Structures are given as structure tokens and as C-alpha cells.
């Protein structure tokens, strides 16, 4: 074999951005694990190589197994992952296992343009600037305008609509996707006295969740009127099939599915007045990433204005930068005023468990 490429040990936190870029060019390669947007990454990688001469390899895997891999490699001095996308499922594991390097917030120059909220909180976790926002997303109600002329906007309308249209409203089991979690989250807000009381908690406070029973009872009463689907995508597919007419969905996911021809283009989306949660996906660099400098440069590149615009135009995701607007999104900025933030992650986990016990397991 050839001579091993010698890599000096360094700490990007202690380097200037120019030094990092220089180091990155020396490294010449970066490996990024994602689980969507293959086509988009391919384009980005071409541009990146043109700009920096660094080859970016994006492995489009599976969210859970990406994390399993990261966990499995955590013990090694040098891993194989430079950059990882972090979504709803991963944040908790990332923290529990102490997987990631950071904080990145002060290393990546572009972070000052990015969504402030997402830089600090993700899915109810306090992320302290470890993860760099990639795009923002938002859950909303999607409906088939042919069959639903006046979708429910207020809480009263919503309850009435469900009564009058049994088995036509659906959201996915919160165990299997974020849009379902968002719906239950909203129900808790609506039926168990708002979200303010949970702020800042790191552990579930029993007294605060006492009146969640209202939520479970509300759901149980409507068990034969609401359909629980098995994934974010399943909800969309079932709307296309004509089985469901009103669903909870992610804005970017829905847009993507429309592009792929999975669902009819006429679908409409909005956020009801009683609110639905949103958030976004981020980038992180594992502690044992072999090319940390290249990773930082790649992340910075992806959060440049041009690339964020390309992302928005290409896959329809809402940009993480505040200085550009999403072009093709389903939800207008007007709609987004009803967006609400997640409550702390400990409650989210508790919510999912309770949903399983109280709603799914009840016969």
C-alpha cells in the first residue's frame, strides 16, 4: 500500500477560519451521513468541489441506523463520519451518549445568519450551539380541497369537523414520526392548560402532567373517528388514496412528495389557529470525526446564502437562514404566525409513552 496520509492532531476551536479552510483543503475529503435528498447532495458536492477542491461524499442512509453507527463508533479514536444530519430521533441519543463535538456555533461563520431558536433548541432539547441549523420545517394541516371546502381553523370548528367527518382526519402514531407528535403536543397545549408551565424543566414534573388525562380522554372518545397512520408519509399516501381528507404533515415533506408525484398537486396546507409545532434539522460533527476542518467548511458552505437558496428552490425546504425566504413553500409567512415551539424534550418522551399506554393500548 501507499504511504498513510499523515494528519496532525488539531482543534478547530482554536483555529481561525482561514486556518480551518487551509486544513480542510489538506484533508481534501469529507463524509456526510444523511437520510434524504440524495439528488440535492449530489449537486452540492459538485459545487463544493469546484469551490474548495474538497470531495464531499454524502451517504444517504437511514436516520436510526446513522445514529446506531455513530454510537457504535463512539468508542473508537477515529470514526468514519465527519458530518451528520440530526433530526427528531437523534437529538436525545446524541446527548445521552455525548457523541458530538462543539459547540460549533462560534466556529461556523454562517451561524450568525441562522435561525436563533434552532441554534439553541431542537425538538425541545437545549442544544447549546452544538448543532448548526440546516433547514426549518413546520407541521400543519394538509387537506384535499376537492373534498374539504372549509377546513377547520379554530378549535371549535376542528372538534365539530371530526364529529361530522368520522375517519377522515388522521395523523401518525407519535412513535413513528414528528407530525403525529406535533398533533398530540398541540392537543396537550389545548386541553391541558397551555405550554408555558413546562418551560425550563429537564425532568417530568408529575403535577404538571396530571391534567393530560383530558387529552387522552379526548382521544379515546374519538378513537373511532380519528385514524392513526404509521408514518408521516403514510398519512400523505392515504390522503392521495382518498382515505383521509385532513391530515397533519410536515411542510417540506409534503412538498417533496408533491414533487415526486406521490400526491396530487392540488393539496392545500395551513396552520390552524390553535397552533402546531415546528423546528428543523441540523448538522453535527462527531467527536471522533476524522476530518473536522473539512466538516466545518462543508457545513459552512451548505449554510451559505446561495446554497440555502438552492436548497429552498430545489427540494422546497424552508431555509434556516433568516435573510432569505422560502420560495416554493406550502405555508406562507402569514400562516407561520400560528407556529408554536416544542415543550422540553423530557415531556415529549413522556407524551409518546403515555400516548402508547393510554390511547393505543386501551381497548
Amino acid at each position: 500500500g501507499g504511504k498513510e496520509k499523515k494528519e496532525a492532531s488539531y482543534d478547530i476551536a482554536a483555529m481561525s477560519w482561514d486556518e480551518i479552510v487551509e486544513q480542510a483543503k489538506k484533508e481534501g475529503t469529507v463524509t456526510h451521513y444523511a437520510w434524504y435528498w440524495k439528488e440535492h447532495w449530489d449537486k452540492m458536492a459538485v459545487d463544493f468541489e469546484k469551490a474548495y477542491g474538497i470531495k464531499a461524499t454524502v451517504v444517504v442512509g437511514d436516520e436510526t441506523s446513522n445514529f446506531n453507527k455513530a454510537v457504535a463508533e463512539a468508542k473508537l479514536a477515529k470514526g468514519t463520519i465527519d458530518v451528520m444530519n440530526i433530526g427528531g430521533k437523534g437529538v436525545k441519543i446524541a446527548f445521552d451518549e455525548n457523541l458530538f463535538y462543539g459547540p460549533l456555533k462560534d466556529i461556523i461563520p454562517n451561524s450568525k445568519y441562522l435561525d436563533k431558536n434552532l441554534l439553541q433548541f431542537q425538538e425541545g432539547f437545549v442544544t447549546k450551539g452544538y448543532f448548526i441549523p440546516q433547514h426549518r420545517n413546520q407541521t400543519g394541516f394538509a387537506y384535499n380541497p376537492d373534498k374539504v371546502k372549509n377546513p377547520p381553523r379554530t378549535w371549535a370548528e376542528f372538534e365539530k369537523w371530526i364529529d361530522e367527518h368520522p375517519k377522515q382526519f388522521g395523523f401518525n402514531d407519535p412513535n413513528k414520526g414528528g407530525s403525529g407528535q406535533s398533533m398530540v403536543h398541540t392537543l396537550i397545549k389545548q386541553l391541558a392548560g397551555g405550554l408555558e408551565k413546562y418551560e425550563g424543566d429537564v425532568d417530568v414534573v408529575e403535577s404538571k402532567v396530571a391534567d393530560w388525562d383530558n387529552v387522552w380522554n379526548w382521544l379515546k372518545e374519538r378513537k373511532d373517528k380519528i385514524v392513526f397512520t404509521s408514518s408521516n408519509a403514510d398519512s400523505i399516501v392515504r390522503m392521495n388514496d382518498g382515505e383521509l381528507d385532513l391530515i397533519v404533515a410536515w411542510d417540506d415533506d409534503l412538498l417533496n412528495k408533491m414533487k415526486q408525484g406521490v400526491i396530487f398537486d392540488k393539496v392545500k396546507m395551513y396552520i390552524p389557529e390553535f397552533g402546531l409545532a415546528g423546528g428543523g434539522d441540523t448538522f453535527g460533527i462527531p467527536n471522533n470525526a476524522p476530518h473536522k476542518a473539512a466538516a466545518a467548511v462543508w457545513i459552512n458552505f451548505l449554510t451559505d446564502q446561495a446554497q440555502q437558496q438552492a436548497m429552498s428552490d430545489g427540494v422546497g425546504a424552508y431555509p434556516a437562514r433568516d435573510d432569505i425566504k422560502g420560495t416554493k413553500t406550502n405555508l406562507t409567512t402569514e400562516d407561520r404566525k400560528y407556529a408554536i415551539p416544542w415543550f422540553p424534550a423530557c415531556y415529549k418522551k413522556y407524551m409518546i409513552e403515555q400516548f402508547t399506554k393510554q390511547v393505543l393500548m386501551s381497548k
Partner: protein
Amino acid sequence: MKRSRLTDYILLLPAFIYVSLFLSFTLFMMISQSFGLFSLLGETEGFTLQYWKSAMIQESFDSFFYSMKIGLVSSTLVVVIAYPIALILNQEIRGARIVGSLIKIPYFINAMVAAFLIINIIAYHGFLNQFLMFLGFIDEPLRMRNDDFGTGVIVIQVWKNIPFALLIITASIAGVSKDVIDAAKDLRAGPVRIFFSIYLPLTISGAVTAHILLFIMIFGDFAIYSVAGPIYPQSLTARMQLIVSNFLQWEEASVLATVLIISVIVVASTLTFISKKYIGIYEKVGYAEIKKD
């Protein structure tokens, strides 16, 4: 002579060592981890029953009963359906071979593909609903996916596994010499008697083998459940996978795996016992016993 003995044993080793090393590691780790021992990655705590306690919650029981139910119902259905088909295919009917090949197709279709194909059929907008509506039996499509009982899963398992059962059962039925059946007919045995006193005792061991293997495959199913199973409960293996990948609770997963393997052993021995009893009726009653009464 001695030297060739030794070479024999050396030649015997490759596959044997391969399998036994892997599996003994697997089983050893599984069982010891369920008691908190020998954790390969995390730190080892020493013998404890804690994980058995914490794994034994309602969700686990529900998963266990779900898998057991699907396993027993589907494997029994498969065998019950495959048996007569095998008997018919065994006749010298013209075209039996074509049917035989046709019928084998699902065996060569991946489990998930099978699940997906059937889902397309039973989906809300699927073939079956459209067909029934076209015929006017229903006004509005039926919702058959992800039903709570697992009917969808059972349909898929049956569809997918009939060929496997057929493969084994046809082989054992083909082993019954045609002359023997002719001889029974010639001795004026009716079809029912031929089935119960000739075919069944001669082929039951094949059928039970098929039944056991099917039970194991269906009981340990992950793929079909994930594609077509009910929202709740999860299949036992799906729950294990979830516990591991979402919560990294290897010890609890080990408990479930141990339970799963013990159940497999129990069910397999029960089925074998029943079949032995049945063959016994025909094997044991001989002249000696007749003389007694």
C-alpha cells in the same frame, strides 16, 4: 485408518465451527446480558434480575401475545391450506406441473415485497376495494390495512408461505408410493380413511416440520410487521429492535430474545409431541394389543 479418521474430523469442521461459534456467542451473550452480565459495550454490572422485571411490562406481554397469535394462526392456516393442495398436485392431473410452478412463485418473492404487493391489493384505493365497489358489494372502500387484529399480516404471511409449506409437504406426499395408495383403494378404503390412516401418518412428520419452521419464521417476523402490522402492539422482534435502536436497552432486548427462543422451543416440542402421538396410533397398535382385548 487412524489418519483418515483425523482428516475426516478436520474436514468436518469448517461449516460446523462457523455456525457454532457464531451461535454460541449469540446465545451466550443474549442470555447473559438478560441477567446483566458480559455487556460487550457498556459496563458490566453483575448478575441481576432487574432487566427481567423491567422488561415484563404490559407492552412486552402485548407484543408476545400478538406474535404468538399471528405465528400460530398463520402457520396453522398455511399448513391446513397447503395440505389439500399438495394432495391435489400429487395426482397425475394434466397441468399439475404448471400449477406447481405457479404456486411456488411467492416463495421467491421477498417478504417485504410480498407485504407491499398485498398492501396494494387491500389498500383503501387498492384493487380489492375497487373490485368490490365495481361489483356493488360495498359503497365505500373498506379499511383493511394496519387493522388491530393483524388480519392483513395473516393474509400476507399465508400468501408468502404457502409455497414453502407446499415444498415440504409435497415432498413427503410424493414419498408415499402410489402403489400404497392403490393398495388401500383396492382394499376398499374410502377417501377419508385413506387420508387419516395412510397419508396423514406417513406425511405428518413433514407437515409438522413445515409447521414448526413456519411458526418460527412468522413468530420472529420483523419485516412484514413493519410494513403491514397494526399500529399497536408491535411484534416481538420489532419491539426488540425498537428497544435497541431507540433506547439502546440491550439487556431488555436480551430478555425478550430469550423469551422468544424459549417460546419457539416450547411450541416446537408441543407440535412434535402431538404428531408423535398421532403416528403412534397407527404404529403401536399391533397384534400384541389386539390379543389382549
